[in-house]
């Protein structure tokens, strides 16, 4: 059994007081405790950003804090080298949807068995508040001055994930602990590419997408009778934007995940597997004239 003390953070949290990341951290710890997977089989991976510092705030868990925009490919390598691991990706909206957007969509279409948790705050938090790809059109920041503010549509991670081939697509809200824990657990245990787009207020930079705003503008998908198996309905819900943000599971399906399509060992995993030198010798000998 995992007790909270085991997850106590090795480092003092450096997030701003009131930051939405705290809710995500708390939910993650709860999800890990409730899942009760052996801790050594969990790997947290992350990119670069406020959000991506999370591995340093959870104790006793393997982690790979990588490069801005690249946690998904790093995590893919970790997962495929050892499919016994549960690999969780923490990524910011700048991380995942700007620098890393290509990887995100490719991982979705490959249905890589990862849980991708997007800390979505509409800004580049750590670099001081520039608009991120998920900032709404017109959003004002240091790099998107008015008029017109951000002169472009936002990236819609849930809609893109569904189209691309992700098999579990959900939205959580840092302010909805209970709901978020459920979504995290589902995403981690789902066999395939699972995305949770987490609404995460940045109290320092984002004066538009605030706690208040989200409290007023979110509603539950599941409480409103959504069919998670219907891809088009999921798309329609995912495309709702602006005034109301559905929270919950958009879409869930099952299809072969990437590991099943690669030449991995049937038993054990790449990490512990050995190439038989006799077979290498045989290839060489067969090549000889």
């Amino acid at each position: 059994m995992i007790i909270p003390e085991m997850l106590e953070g090795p480092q003092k949290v450096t997030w701003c007081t009131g930051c939405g990341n705290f809710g995500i951290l708390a939910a993650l710890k709860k999800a890990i405790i409730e899942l009760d997977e052996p801790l050594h089989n969990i790997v947290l991976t992350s990119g670069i950003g406020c959000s991506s510092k999370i591995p340093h705030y959870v104790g006793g868990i393997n982690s790979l804090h990588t490069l801005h925009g690249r946690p998904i490919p790093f995590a893919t390598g970790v997962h495929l080298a050892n499919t016994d691991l549960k690999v969780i990706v923490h990524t910011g909206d700048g991380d995942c949807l700007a620098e890393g957007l290509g990887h995100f969509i490719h991982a979705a279409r490959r249905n890589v068995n990862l849980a991708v948790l997007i800390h979505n705050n509409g800004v580049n938090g750590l670099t001081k508040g520039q608009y991120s790809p998920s900032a709404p059109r017109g959003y004002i920041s240091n790099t998107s001055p008015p008029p017109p503010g951000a002169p472009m549509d936002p990236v819609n991670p849930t809609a893109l994930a569904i189209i691309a081939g992700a098999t579990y697509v959900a939205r959580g809200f840092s302010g909805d602990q209970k709901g978020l824990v459920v979504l995290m657990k589902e995403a981690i245990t789902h066999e395939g590419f699972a995305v949770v787009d987490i609404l995460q207020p940045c109290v320092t930079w984002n004066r538009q997408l605030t706690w208040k705003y989200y409290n007023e503008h979110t509603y539950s998908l599941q409480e409103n009778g959504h069919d998670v198996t219907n891809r088009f309905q999921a798309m329609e819900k995912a495309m709702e934007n602006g005034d109301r943000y559905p929270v919950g599971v958009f879409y869930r399906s099952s299809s072969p995940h990437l590991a099943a399509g690669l030449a991995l060992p049937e038993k054990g995993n790449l990490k512990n597997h050995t190439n038989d030198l006799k077979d290498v010798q045989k290839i060489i000998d067969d090549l000889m004239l």
Partner: protein
Amino acid sequence: MDISFNIGGEAGQGIDTIGDLLTQVFVQAGFYTFTIKDFESRIRGGYNFTQIRVSDRPVHTSVDQIDMIIALSRDAVVNQRERLADGGVIIFDDSVEFDDLEACHYPAPLEKIAKEVGGDARMMNAAALGAVLSILNFPFALAQEALTGIFERKGEKIVASNVNVAKTLYDKTKENFTGTCKYNLETLESGPSKDKLLITGNRALALGAIAANLKWISSYPMSPSTSLFQDVISYSQQFKIGALQTEDEISSLAMAIGASYAGARSMVTTSGGGFSLMVEALGFAAMAEVPVVIYNAQRPGPSTGLPTRTEQADLLFMGFASQGEFPRIMLAPKDPLESFDVATRAFNLAEKYQVPVMILGDQYLADSVMNVPRIDVSTITVDRGKLAKPGSNPEYKRYLFIDDGVSPRAFPGDEGKTVVSAGNVHREDGHITEDANIRNLMVQKFMNKIPKILADLNPPQLYGDKTAETTLMTWGSTWGAANEAVEILAGRGKSINQLHFCDIFPLRTEKLRDVFSKSKRVIAVEQNVTSQFAALARMETGLGVSQHINKYDGRAMTPGWIIGKLKEAGIV
């Protein structure tokens, strides 16, 4: 005996298969061969050639003079005839129209006979073989033996048709070929070579990597590296090697690092443009001390440059790529045989020192074919470097400060240990910090690895007279051309030798200093314009070469070209 064949034609016409067959026959017959490929960046048409050198002495380079041109297109004659040796012969498929060919040259019904006798245009290779061997007066019995050996696995019928086609052309040529050829191999018996493994640099690297227990490869196709990746994939199901064509090079190196962090020996393959995109992840591997092997098959740049041609111009780029400072290892094999060895060493070095190891090949190395002795893999050892003691250890620190800078590794999934890694400056436990002291200790940890690495790398090799006046300094795949140039010149009584480097970074300088102190002049011979290796050597030692010889048109060097340049410069 030392004969060069140039088989030319359009991409897609099958010049490679003619070349393969010709090579195989001579290898079977006990000769040494060396084959280079020259092709354009297009899929069909244009003008490509394969050039095969056959000799009764080991050969490691192609030469300028051609003894026999086998031409499947007009261009194949036009582009090469100037290089034809006195007494050389041009065989061309009689479907190609020429008005202007000298009498001695021979229009052969290659395609026609392949179809008529063999029932398949693809047997043109056997037809061409027949014609070639006939002109050389090569005993057909030897050829038949070789053909049988080559096609044995495909069944008697195939053997028979191929032998038939070859024999038909052999005989027809005897009738119709009116010229004489300077080579007459009538009395030929079996040659001296026992080297029966025909292999390219890329394939040797692939097999070396597999022998070294490669378990993960993720790449994005890029000439001239792709065939290595494809070779590994072709064996991946047999060995259970995770292999994925990624969406880009950024992803390919990131995945390989992820896989290595999790315990699988990993590599990526690319060329300079793709390596450019790997630079950020290279720095991450260094910072997180995750071993990984990167193969760069160089081609002429900058940018897209000449995609299917050869150059050695990424040395300094790779030596200093990525922000910040960290240990790395670079190895540049001289030929296919050394490639196998380099691949196995690369993985061991990467894991012993927990650093990125880069293998620098080039199109010349990648695509050249030579016959080498059987490679015996039984002596290969996998050294995974320092691993943490098994068993639970909550105090385990992935980046433990330790004298030689190499901290014991553990992997996620190992019970009772937590493996924390990051690209930020981190503490011994892997968690990030901005502390100035820890930063200093981490930098020193990195730097401490370098002397140990240096001691573990191979020194350069000095070829030829140790006390010679003139030294050619080379690295990587230009070894062969320079080596033969030195042999030739030494044979003419010139005082010349060759100092050659395979392990180039960090640079072992003892022998270099020694040679500089003994030679009157050291001449850098490099397949690039700025003499990058000479620059590196000077950076490390202050010693400057007296002269540079540079080739940068994307075509491989030859001994003749080098000698010409030395003459121009008044050195020999």
